[in-house]
């Protein structure tokens, strides 16, 4: 903790340790500052708290002040209060003031400021009722929270690196330098990957103008010299079982098989060239002097820098065709990011091979982002390199085994024919996550595999039976890291590029996205840090991103499990495995604590110490439902990541919100259990709104599929509601981005208006 910083998340540490025998004692602390005291009947609030098991109820005009916090500390020390319900401002502010050691104390925040008094009419009956309900919700949550018992165990603190190319070598060396042992698995008989086969590589340091020899051989030497790196060559993983800190990885290498204890995994399996055979329209296979960029590397490496055509003749005039089979819906729809730079480098090979040699680069867009612009500029200043924008019309064989490329849409405004001794196709990169023969734009969702129909309790389910390929995970959900598009095992996050759906396994380098060696090296460092961090947090029983530090985990009451498999199917992180009967088995260290399993379970048997189906059910029940028709009650389940802050901002802007909503925040809407819907509607609330993150291809859900899972589940709520003779439209999920708070007033009013149309809930008053 800093003695200099202006703010830290310092925990308050009262003098006395709590007693051995644990009994919950709730204190409710109501702040009357920031308009709360001026807008509400505080005495009535105090009574409401006392009526709901709060043994100590106090108010303070400035609760977050030193004096206010000391008042609470005094109750902790002298009255034995161990559960503090803070009815004040948003949980997003004053976190440092209201923070007690989570291993000993329970803290629940009730947002009276932003979400009640700042967004509703002061000293109004409806606002008062809302405040009391929100306080009761907080008390109900606190009462259903048990003390933490973190899962702490001895872990293996080593990193398995899959792939021995630039990314893998760097991951290994970086991890060792940080103090961790490494097992490096490479499928080939030698380390170094593509870089080891290149004559020269792109510049990686300023001024980014000149190509030079790769330093990969130094890296290989360092890896081989390290006594902390176990290198396995000609190696293939035959299975990966377990969870972070406790993986058992079986590797077959040079004919023998061994099972290794592994802590975390970095997948650096790299890339392979796109199948050039498919580029016949660009002359490949049809014209002998048409080669790919990877072949060009082999040619210069094998001939000491001379450019020798497949027919043995020396090429002096070499054309390069960019985006060959790339940015092309028929082949690779994406851009491989490095081919412009590679062709510029290979153009230098050409000009270095002979003083009269010439290179022609035909491009759509030269993509040399960032400081690599200097490299592009160096090529433009190279008299032997010509660059022209254009689109290919035809590629034909010309005299003496050469090639004639006709291009259109040039900068000259007319068709041009280039004659060259040789044509290099700047073909793209395919992730090695895809088995040979798989087509990037025609893949089964999430995993490579085959569609299969399976009969389950819920009827016939169509799912992908995935093929094991590299990691061969023994996970219920699939044997590899899932992908979003084109086979890249990428979570598609902007802010959190190491977000992974397989906790403890991080993809880095070109297996994850096309990138240069310089980017791969940087990526290796990031992935190594995440792998190490996962181990260190797991060792303390703590979750990784995004609920970093959360020490709860799902606990399953197996006696009531019906083996329906919903939890194992829906977990976004593959935490739960199942036995042959379908009984779920938790793997605590894979868990990210989102609660999707809890929401999925129709038997309500999955709980966390501070988050459970009965807890939220109790919170809902604690909302008073008056009989008057002009006081409808609408339960609003909100995602605490985006919807909750969005409501706060509505408060800061003093937007006025409909007073009939009661907010209950969830870790993620994915935790929504359908039993809550039926329970609260049969208790007379008019409707339920769920505000969650956007889902779909550009999902914003921090648990990847949580809000989507919720929406799928709600699709089935119709059945429940028709049994209750209620309209399905009484339940509505909306998607809201964090910065769309301005839409909240309308959004809430509109739904309240829709509900009016159905008339009062017939269960009201029962």
């Amino acid at each position, binding site marked *: *903790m*800093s003695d200099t*910083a*202006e*703010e830290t*998340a*310092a925990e308050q540490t009262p003098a006395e340790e709590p007693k051995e025998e644990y009994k919950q004692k709730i204190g409710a602390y109501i702040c009357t*500052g*920031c*308009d709360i005291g001026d807008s509400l009947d505080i005495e009535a609030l105090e009574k409401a708290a006392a009526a709901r098991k709060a043994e100590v109820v106090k108010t303070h005009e400035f609760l977050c002040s030193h004096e206010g916090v000391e008042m609470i500390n005094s109750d902790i020390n002298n009255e034995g209060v161990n559960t503090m319900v803070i009815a004040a*401002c948003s949980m*997003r*502010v004053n*976190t*440092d003031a209201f923070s007690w050691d989570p291993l000993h104390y329970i803290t629940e925040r009730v947002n009276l400021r932003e979400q009640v008094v700042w967004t509703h009419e002061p000293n109004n009956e409806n606002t008062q009722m809302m405040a009391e309900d929100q306080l009761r919700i907080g008390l109900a949550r606190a009462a259903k929270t048990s003390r933490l018992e973190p899962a702490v165990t001895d872990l293996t603190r080593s990193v398995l690196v899959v792939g021995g190319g630039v990314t893998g070598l760097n991951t290994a060396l*970086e991890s060792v*330098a940080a103090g961790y042992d490494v097992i490096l698995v490479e499928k080939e008989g030698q380390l170094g990957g593509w870089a080891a086969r290149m004559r020269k590589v792109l510049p990686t340091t*300023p*001024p980014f103008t000149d190509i030079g020899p790769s330093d990969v051989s130094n890296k290989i030497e360092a890896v081989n010299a390290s006594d902390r790196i176990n290198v396995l060559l000609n190696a293939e993983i035959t299975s990966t079982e377990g969870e972070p800190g406790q993986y058992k990885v079986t590797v077959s290498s040079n004919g023998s098989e061994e099972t290794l204890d592994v802590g975390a995994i970095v997948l650096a399996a790299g890339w392979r060239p796109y199948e050039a055979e498919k580029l016949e329209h660009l002359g490949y296979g049809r014209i002998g002097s048409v080669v790919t960029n990877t072949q060009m590397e082999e040619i210069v490496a094998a001939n000491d820098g001379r450019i020798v055509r497949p027919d043995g003749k020396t090429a002096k005039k070499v054309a390069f065709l960019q985006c060959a089979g790339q940015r092309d819906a028929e082949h690779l*729809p*994406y*851009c491989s990011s490095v081919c412009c730079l590679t062709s510029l480098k290979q153009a230098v090979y050409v000009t270095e091979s002979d003083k009269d040699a010439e290179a022609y680069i035909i491009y759509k867009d030269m*993509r040399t*982002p*960032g*400081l*690599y*612009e*200097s490299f592009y500029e160096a090529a433009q200043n190279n008299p032997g390199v010509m660059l022209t*924008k254009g689109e290919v019309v035809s590629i034909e064989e010309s005299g003496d085994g050469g090639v004639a490329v006709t291009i259109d849409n040039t*900068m000259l*405004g007319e068709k041009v024919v280039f004659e060259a001794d040789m044509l290099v196709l700047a073909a793209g990169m395919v992730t090695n996550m895809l088995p040979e023969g798989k087509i990037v734009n025609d893949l089964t969702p999430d995993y490579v595999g085959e569609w299969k129909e399976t009969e389950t309790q819920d009827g016939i389910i169509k799912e992908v039976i995935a093929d094991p390929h590299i990691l061969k995970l023994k996970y219920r959900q699939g044997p590899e890291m899932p992908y979003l*598009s084109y086979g*890249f095992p990428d979570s598609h996050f*902007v*802010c959190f590029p*190491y977000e992974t759906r397989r906790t403890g396994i991080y993809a880095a380098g070109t297996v994850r996205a096309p990138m240069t060696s310089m*980017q791969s090296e*940087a*990526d290796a460092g*990031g992935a190594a*840090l995440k792998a*190490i*961090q996962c181990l*260190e947090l797991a060792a303390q029983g703590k979750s990784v*991103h*995004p609920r*970093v*530090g959360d020490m709860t985990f799902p606990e399953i009451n197996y006696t009531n499990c019906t083996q329906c498999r919903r939890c194992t199917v829906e977990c976004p992180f593959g935490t739960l495995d199942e036995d042959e009967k379908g009984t779920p088995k938790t793997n605590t260290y894979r868990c990210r604590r989102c609660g999707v399993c809890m929401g999925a379970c129709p038997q309500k048997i999955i709980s966390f110490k501070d988050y459970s189906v009965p807890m939220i059910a109790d919170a809902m029940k604690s909302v008073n439902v008056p009989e008057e028709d002009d006081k409808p009650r609408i339960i609003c389940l909100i995602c605490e990541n*985006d919807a909750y802050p969005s409501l706060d*901002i509505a408060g*800061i802007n003093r937007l006025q919100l409909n007073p009939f909503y009661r907010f209950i925040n969830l870790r993620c809407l994915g935790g929504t259990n359908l039993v809550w819907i039926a329970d609260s509607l049969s208790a007379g609330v008019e409707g339920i709104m769920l505000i969650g993150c*956007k889902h779909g291809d*550009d999902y*914003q859900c921090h648990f990847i599929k949580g809000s989507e899972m919720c929406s799928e589940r709600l699709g089935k709520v119709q059945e429940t509601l028709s049994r209750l003779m209620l309209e399905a439209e009484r339940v509505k999920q909306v998607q809201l981005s*964090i*910065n*769309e*708070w*301005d839409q909240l007033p309308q959004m809430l009013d509109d739904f309240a208006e829709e509900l009016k149309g159905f008339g009062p809930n017939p269960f009201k008053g029962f």
Partner: protein
Amino acid sequence: MADKDVIVVGGGISGTTAAVEAAEAGLEAVIVEKNPYLGGRVSQLFRYFPKLCPPYCGLEINFRRIRNNPKVSYHTQAVVESVSGAAGDFKVSIRKNPRYVNEKCTSCGECVKVCPVERDNEYNFGLDKTRAIYLPHELAFPMRYVIDMSVCKGSACAECVKVCKYGAIDLEMQPETVEVSAGNVVYATGWNPYDASKIENLNADTIPNVVTNMVMERMAAPNGPTKGAIVRPSDGKEVKKIAFAQCAGSRDRNNLEYCSAVCCMASLKQATYIREKYPEDAEATIFYIDLRAPGKYEDFLRKLQEDEKVTMRKGKVAKIEEDSATGDVIVTLEDVFGSGKVEERFDMVVLATGMEPAAVSDKPASAVLEKNGFIDAGASADGIHAAGVARRPSDVAESVQGATGAALKCMQTVREVSNV
């Protein structure tokens, strides 16, 4: 032993990432941020490409990671004045400028109601005003007011002091200098928008309806000066015909020699802003040299190419002029396809101005800069690292990767030092 394992200079997306990633791996980290809030440049953006999601979604998570982790602390309105010593034990002198509002501030907002002085809001590039006491923006972290003393009347007024129930305002607050020792220094000082007025022919500073891409972000944002309306600065007219001039200052020997790496994607993204606002009739034209949408970003480019109301034209903008009668902007293009010069009229023109490393003006004490002003960590002393755009032009995802890698480098230094 040093007070901290890591000092991160800069609290934008890269700096906060470096600090929280290091702290979650067990290191003690402190962020030194010059603004009164964390979040940096990205906090000013309306949306990120390619997901079109709000930057605050991720920032909010990072702020939560900071709030909940005792191993991360931060200073705002603070700058590093000097760095001495060596890896494992740098002595860093930090100047903390006064906020004039202390930690008792509850952000209730009563002070603003009585403040009589207005100031230009630099968060919105001067397009609107705040009071002298202000909250930088609604999502600001820390959620605390600040006083701009360059306009505040001080104790002669003190209306805010009188109205604050919490004793949070201290008009006599003085700057202070704190000395912190640290194992590593990570420079995540980020970037400033390139000063478009330096670019000849584009008349960025004289034509009101020529704006920069950063101004466009603020205009599109619901908490921006126009509350999300994309309208002309000159007359408030809805912008239905917009042009984007790429490489405004970038890839230009007279300005920024490098490519800023994000402006093509940024303009494509901004084209979606206007297409979403006025789906029926808004038209966007992007004038470019090369469209740079690497990797899977190509999918985003393709989606825009499929929109018939979005036109992409290769060619460098030669001249931008105003039709003073209408306020329209006339763009002259050097058309590369042989048809000579072409003129076209727009409601508004957005200059895709590049990113200039903040190090050009900040002149970091202990880092080696390459010729453009980016930090060359490899050439700098051990224990000195760089992340984000301070290191090289990069988008958010790449900045975050680099920042995470920088956290590992810090861990390595700490280990080496403790082994000695």
